[in-house]
């Protein structure tokens, strides 16, 4: 049983081992880049859009609306980052239906790399929108006592991002493999369909969480952009930017109200 595609060695060149994770990542990247390059080859105003271009536009505009609902400011740059994360994870999770292809997100190396890129992107977006001083001031926001806890929450955020995606995709593969030895033909297919659903949801959640983290780092530094909005739409970003601690506070306050 393979827990991770890191153990599958595809090629051995001059003492360097090329494992299935790297090869499958390259396949996913080549598919993404190749398909979008072929579709947007004739991107001119005089060429009427064909069905492929329309499909691509539907995907991109869906990602754009989802991200614009969460982060109001600098949504375009966040969209390049989070949309790429979503497309990569979604495609690699979708390709698990192909026999012999183990999705690269089933390896902890890939998910850790994606989570680290999110961890690096959060300060970058925060500094780009509000400057270094304003970003660093966010760490001592309620008081200086909270400094270590803010740093710990930053690190645990990245770990949970990586392990969540890895655990979900890996569990689908492992359960399918176990069922294949017990009850072949029917149940593995059902579990694979469930794995497709879980993979899409996890890709969505990864991109949404990255957007929420980035917009929580940038939104604090630009209060003027939010205060310009009417008060009705102001509630929406604050509701979607809730952190896990606020969730638990909400549920506990609900409990008190009920009892």
């Amino acid at each position, binding site marked *: 049983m393979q*827990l991770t595609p890191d153990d599958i060695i595809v090629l051995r060149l001059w003492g360097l081992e090329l494992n299935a994770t790297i090869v499958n990542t390259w396949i996913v990247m080549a598919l993404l880049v190749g398909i979008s390059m072929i579709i947007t080859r004739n991107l001119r105003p005089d060429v009427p859009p064909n069905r492929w271009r329309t499909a691509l536009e539907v995907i991109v505009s869906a990602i754009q609306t989802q991200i614009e609902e*969460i982060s109001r400011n600098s949504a375009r740059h966040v969209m390049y980052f989070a949309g790429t994360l979503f497309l990569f994870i979604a495609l690699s999770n979708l390709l698990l239906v192909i026999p012999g292809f183990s999705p690269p997100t089933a390896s902890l190396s890939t998910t850790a790399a994606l989570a680290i890129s999110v961890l690096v992107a959060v300060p970058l977006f925060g500094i780009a929108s509000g400057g270094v001083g304003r970003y660093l001031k966010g760490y001592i926001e309620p008081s200086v006592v909270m400094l270590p806890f803010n740093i710990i929450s930053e690190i645990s955020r990245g770990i949970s991002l990586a392990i969540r995606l890895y655990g979900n995709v890996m569990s689908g593969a492992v359960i399918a493999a176990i069922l294949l030895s017990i009850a072949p033909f029917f149940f593995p297919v059902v579990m694979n369909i469930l794995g497709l659903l879980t993979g899409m949801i996890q890709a969505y959640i990864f991109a949404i969480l990255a957007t929420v983290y980035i917009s929580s780092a940038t939104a604090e530094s630009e209060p003027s952009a939010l205060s310009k909005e009417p008060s009705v739409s102001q509630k929406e970003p604050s509701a979607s930017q809730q952190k896990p601690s606020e969730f638990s506070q909400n549920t506990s306050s609900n409990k008190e109200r009920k009892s």
Partner: protein
Amino acid sequence: MTELTIIAAISIFTAGFTIAIGSIGPALGEGRAAAAAIAAMAQQPDAAPTLSRTLFVSMAMIESTAIYCFVVAMILIFANPFWDALQTASVVGG
């Protein structure tokens, strides 16, 4: 019982307990979250997109503890470090 058998038995037992106990809390929590979100959606159907997105994100947060337990159980069964260490030691020693 040899040392390998003891380690195997305890690992399998612990893996079962890990996933059994570790899934109780997230299951209850997800049930509460879904019930609260559905009640909120029934009261305010206009806010359904925002609510469902928040529900997805919070579900992922709640579920991640169960996923950690699953990963630990999988490591105990398929990639047990003590088992591997003892096996290599027995190969080297004997």
